[in-house]
């Protein structure tokens, strides 16, 4: 095989591989990407049931109900609106009322947020960056910057 032929083959293989990879990426992007929303966003903008959402805020005081079974419900608030979240599984170690939390899942038509992942802070000073930003927009939290940034995936269904 000539050098030219070799180069041509190599480039065409590389390009087709890139095309396949691009296809895979676009396909995967369709439904495995979650948009970050605050509770206020969820009230103001309608969201499709099939859109994966990353909901962040504070765990509203006095809203955590540990059912008799394994499902826990709690309110997530940005002090403006409250969304009720239901989650089946084990909450992260540092999940507490009044603290920042990020949950991922889908919004059911009845307004209940069904989370499959709950992330909480990982140390005393932690405020998830996205939550801090959203709360700052609401004028609630005046902390500086992002706080420390360690999120702890709770149990999730990977």
């Amino acid at each position, binding site marked *: 095989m000539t050098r030219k032929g070799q180069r041509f083959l190599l480039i065409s293989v590389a390009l087709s591989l890139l095309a396949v990879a691009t296809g*895979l990426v676009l396909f995967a992007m369709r439904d495995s990407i979650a948009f970050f929303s605050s509770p206020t966003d969820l009230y103001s903008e309608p969201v499709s049931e099939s859109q994966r959402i990353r909901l962040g805020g504070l765990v509203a005081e006095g809203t955590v109900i540990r059912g008799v079974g394994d499902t826990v419900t709690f309110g997530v608030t940005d002090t403006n609106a409250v969304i009720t979240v239901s989650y089946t599984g084990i909450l992260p*170690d540092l999940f507490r009322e009044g603290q920042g939390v990020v949950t991922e899942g889908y919004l059911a038509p009845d307004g209940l947020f069904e989370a499959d992942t709950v992330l909480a802070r*990982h140390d005393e000073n932690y405020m998830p960056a996205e939550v801090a930003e959203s709360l700052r927009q609401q004028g609630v939290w005046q902390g500086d910057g992002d706080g*420390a940034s360690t999120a702890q995936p709770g149990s999730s269904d990977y």
Partner: protein
Amino acid sequence: MIVELGHYVLVLALVLAVVQSVLPFWGARTAEAGLMRIGDFTATVQFGFLSISFAALTYAYVVSDFSVLNVVQNSHSEKPMLFKVTGVWGNHEGSMLLWVLILGLFGAGIAWFGGNLPRTLKANVLSVQAWVTVAFLLFIILTSNPFERVLSAPAEGEDLNPILQDIGLAIHPPLLYLGYVGLSISFSFAIAALIEGRLDAAWARWVRPWTLAAWVFLTLGISMGSFWAYYELGWGGWWFWDPVENASFMPWLAATALLHSAIVMEKREALKIWTVLLAIIAFSLSLLGTFLVRSGVLTSVHAFATDPERGLFILLILLLFIGGGFALFAIRASELRNGGVFAPVSREGALVVNNLLLSVSTATVLLGTLYPLILEAFTGDKISVGPPFFNLTFGPLMIPLLIALPLGPLLAWKRGDLVTALHRVWWAAAASIVTLACVLALFGTDAWIKAVAIAVAAWVMLGAIAEPLARVKAFSSPIGDTARRLINLPRSAWGTTLAHFGVGVMVLGIVGVSAFESERITTVRPGDTVDVAGYEFTFEGMRPNTGPNYQEIIAGFTVREGGTVIANLEPSRRIYPARNFPTTEAGFHTVGFSQLYISPGDPTDDGGLVVRLYHKPLVTLIWIGTLIMSLGGLVSLMDRRLRIGAPQRAKRKAPAVPPGMEPAE
């Protein structure tokens, strides 16, 4: 006093690094042997200074010197001694100090073992290495000084993040850093070669052992990290596609590609430009990883408290080295001549396929990791890219790589024959197809993805063994001859076989745990029994316990299989009062290669306990596989040809069989 000494020698190391970044480089340009030799001296002394500096910080931790801010923030006098020492790098400043210590170690390694390098190349490599060291020492001294004092020393420290109080911290970061930083050598060699404008097969022979060593450490570091996350965090997973995991995984993929392309360059003088580019990319990805972890732009378990100034500084280092590296590459690459033409079906061709697939999959991981950052920067939308993205993109790209993997080593250089190659592994292929059929018969045709995945794992494992067996003619010649040939196989061939076999073992583990895991989330009360995958877990109740620096509530479980007790597990929920920090300690029992895993959750209002119970089939194979891969790398490193400092061996003896029968070495 010792703390000040540590700070002082750190500054001295910076001065030496500055000297080293100029003089040997200048010596190489002006052919001054004296200037070039200075590099050996500065690299050695620099490493000495960095060791003293690191020892000083360790001393401060060991004696719990709470007048040092770093110790106050990350230690506690009641912490067990092991964690006092490992706590040195369990924080931002200390871990950066470890980073440069290892950088210094590798620089000194070049000075000590690089005796057979051409003098100018060695001088240039040492200078480039010093550029990196200068940048990181400036970073530490200006933004992350671990020796900073506090004016009024508190009586007690704030303790180390309890999640880090584990033997894993003693092993995972040092290994990972040895790998990350080890790639700086490949980078320095690449830049030095571009500066000199000379690149030949000998260059690849020098670079390969260093890259291989870095690769072995990186492999061990990543797999230790995965194992640590699995048992310590109590989430039951072994890989989360967390941005920081990706940050270590991308350099690994690039280093794996580099190892393979360097073989082609060494043997056939082909793929030169590509190999140099890969060396630059691999280290760039390690720098990117450092940036992602240290700047706090990503939310992750690994990020320590962050500071925008530091992020900016590392970003500058990143731009300087990546930008500079690529710019130099763009200017010089056209001067490098490629050798060796080869047919598409050949050993070179197979290694090109390996490189293409590894590079493209690195690109998809990079995209998934950076896309949220880029999107937020441009549109303000905040998104997260989760594991499904990576499983859907990375997974399919690995399948052809794994299928091609056993065939590569069977193809001859220059022009191979697929039919001959297949002929040598037909039994492995047949066994894999039988495996496929068995799995389909057992689990039904709906389970075809699982069946294909298991068959691929079997194919990789058996195919890896088929190569040396074919080479020694295991089935067609007397046993004595076979054994003799087996003993005479070069260690690099054993290394390849082991590493490839390890890949198969790891894949089998991944498939086993991903496809056949059983999980129950349930609430238990004392006396309750829960059945998971045929194992009966009986909850015996909870009892309190006090550890050295924590209190815990232990949940007792008895595990029975068919009525007989096989294990008593005691997972617990701990609280570390120094930080008021709770952690979960999962409970395990290993059955063969599989594991039973209990992660206790919160007590419920009515006296129960929420627990997650898992049966994880073959999960330990994931880490056993990576260990075998690393072992393969080590064995290959011991090959005479690659041994650092070993004289170059004369041309290999031609195989004693007719050409075309035996794959060329």
